[in-house]
């Protein structure tokens, strides 16, 4: 086993997981105020109305597919009658559909972000970095599915990647499982690890604010002043996006009084 393999398939995922967990705790502890979707819908809603639901529904399907494919051993699925063939058809075609939905949504959202002036100005450097890793992860995942599953002979990741993931989860890592995995799958896994490491420091934290309790709470919320405790203004922390004025407009034609 080479050092590189151990670094890639043991150290990197665990490091990413630690950053993911500790980062979220840290951010929740110290930046509740910055924990938001940072919606730009007030600036533009025509494109968002299509792009955002497409992306989000697509990515939820993708996540569900990953849970089934990676976490559930295939013997369990055999037991309830889902054979390899049925699984392969479902995973490939539903996966492709979800991928198309997600990527099309993402394309609309990125296009909107770049072309709508106020939205572009409200885009932070962190957002841009996040888009690169998110886009790369999605692109490699889709490429892997297309190249090996749809047009290729089919690669049985449930014999390699899935056991590797489950091994990582129960702290019995087996990097050897990942060595024979095709390139695009490997790239997909690596970019995903990097994305997870980046996650707590981006707007992606809003995933963990999915308002499920809304379904079960009473409509009107009462809270005592004393229970709220000391709330109020707080300093902007290093590392995320402070509330700032939009950048200075270009002052091309502007001439200044020359300094004496």
């Amino acid at each position, binding site marked *: 086993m080479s050092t590189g393999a151990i670094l890639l398939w043991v150290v990197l995922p665990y490091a990413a997981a630690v950053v993911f967990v500790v980062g979220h705790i840290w951010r929740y502890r110290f930046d509740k105020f910055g924990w*938001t*979707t*940072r*919606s730009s819908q007030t*600036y533009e809603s025509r494109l968002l109305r299509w792009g955002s639901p497409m992306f989000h529904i697509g990515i939820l399907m993708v996540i569900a597919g990953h849970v089934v494919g990676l976490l559930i051993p295939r013997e369990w699925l055999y037991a309830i009658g889902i054979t390899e063939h049925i699984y392969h058809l479902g995973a490939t075609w539903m996966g492709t559909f979800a991928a198309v939905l997600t990527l099309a949504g993402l394309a609309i959202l990125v296009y909107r972000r770049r072309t709508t002036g106020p939205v572009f100005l409200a885009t932070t450097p962190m957002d841009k970095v996040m888009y690169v890793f998110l886009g790369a992860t999605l692109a490699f995942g889709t490429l892997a599915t297309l190249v090996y599953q749809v047009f290729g002979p089919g690669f049985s990741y449930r014999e390699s990647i899935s056991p590797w993931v489950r091994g990582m989860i129960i702290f019995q890592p087996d990097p050897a499982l990942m060595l024979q995995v095709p390139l695009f799958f490997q790239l997909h896994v690596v970019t995903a690890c990097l994305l997870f490491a980046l996650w707590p420091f981006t707007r992606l934290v809003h995933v963990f604010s999915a308002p499920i309790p809304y379904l079960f709470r009473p409509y009107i919320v009462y809270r005592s002043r004393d229970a709220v405790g000391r709330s109020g203004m707080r300093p902007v922390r290093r590392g995320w996006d402070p509330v700032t004025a939009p950048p*200075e407009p270009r002052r091309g034609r502007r*001439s200044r009084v020359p300094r004496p």
Partner: protein
Amino acid sequence: MKVMAQMSMVMNLDKCIGCHTCSVTCKQAWTNRTGVEYVWFNNVETRPGVGYPRTYEDQEKWRGGWVRTKRGRLKLRDGGRLHKLSRIFSNPKLPEIHDYYEPWTYDYDMLLNSPSGEHTPVARPKSLLTGKDMKIGWSANWDDNLGGSLETMDQDPLLAKMSEEVKAEYEKAFMFYLPRICEHCLNPSCVASCPSGAMYKRSEDGIVLVDQDACRGWRMCVSGCPYKKVYFNHRTGKAEKCTFCYPRVEVGMPTVCAETCVGRLRYLGLVLYDADAVAAAASVEDEHDLLEAQRQVLLDPNDPAVIEAARAEGIEEDWIHAAQASPIWKLIRDYQVALPLHPEYRTMPMVWYIPPLSPVVDVVSNTGNDGEDADNLFAAIDKLRIPIGYLAELFTAGDTAPVDLALRKLAAMRSYMRGISLDDVRDESITEAVGMTGTQMEEMYRLLAIAKYEERYVIPPAHAEQAHDLEEMGCSLDFEGGPGMGGAGPFGSSSGESVPVAVENFQALKNRQTADRPSTAGRVNLLNWDGNGRPDGLFPPGPQAQDRDGS
């Protein structure tokens, strides 16, 4: 019966001169920050008019507030919980910035620093969203004093409900001002719409607030509020709304808008209400019954049973006394001249309005008749169906009778008090015509016309025995991260728990001083300078100043 206390406001529209002082002082106090340039916790609308944001009262379009289902239950007009969550990725009922207006500043620097030339330099408007030149097309009070209303008036959702003939007559007939803040409703649909549970009604005083640390920016509150008084801070990605100036109210001071109102038209006080009765009152079948149902939800603070129940709920004696002295209770229940804004939204709003009589008086006076004679005024109220219908659309879901009665009471007061002042006659027949006694009428006159500060604002401070806990009264700097604190948080001095509202820390001060772009790069915007410290850029650079002196 579950007794709760509610801080409320009544505005006497007869006295509003539309000067916007309340809006300006409110803005300086609360929303002079980046991201909330377009946010007016308090705004003053000219009526008839389209309001702010434009046509916010058109609930067919914006879907705010509650509706009564066929089974007699309340449901959010924009749909229930699952329906809201299903549209969380893109909220289709959210007003865009252009439904408010695109915030802008002016290129003032041009006026100071442009070189000498043939033409006078011009400060061009610059968008605060894009930084580019823009054409100003709308603002918070663009149709002020019916300005340009020939083009926009037909968009007024209330006029749309009235007949064509009325529309043609509106401009001749009627104009008045409507100052608006958050209604701090008893049945707030914004709170019910918030998926995160970040919005809440304070159990002590009923003020509706947004927990900025819990808000996740889903924006459902903006759609849920039929008054569109929850705003989205487009920089922080969080909802913000009128706070009823809770840091001031907690220490017994009136809100900024009330304190600075030049017409002294705002009244502040507590009312006690039965929280268990709110849902039933908000779901009465006939919209015209909502006003009376809401009046009945409010509890008589002099009733021994109510006092007993209030004590059982832990409401302190000084608060019960304040509720007994409340001008709000008198105006809503004793005199019944105050009416709620749009009760048909079924949110049980708690900022009420005394409808304006002065347009009626003007009409009577302009025809050469005595504008203070009771019979003339009563006749005019009967005849002026257009303004009364419009007021009824605003305050009583279209039922003209309560508006009629309120205006008659105001007219009777006018003429009865003139009798006392000029002729020394107490003509009780005038007051009896509106179902009041002369003494009551004089009391109402005192409250409405003389309106001493302590009669207008009956605000019990938060409980004295808890005073040391109140954030605004704490003088210790020994909170975590404060100047008196020895150690810093684990990640340096700027990390750790949040700090009290009133203690402005270094970063917040710096941010506020530099948040709005000053006209000259590197200089401090003096409008945002609070007089503390000497930030960089407060004065022009030194060497330059010396050179100017030397030359």
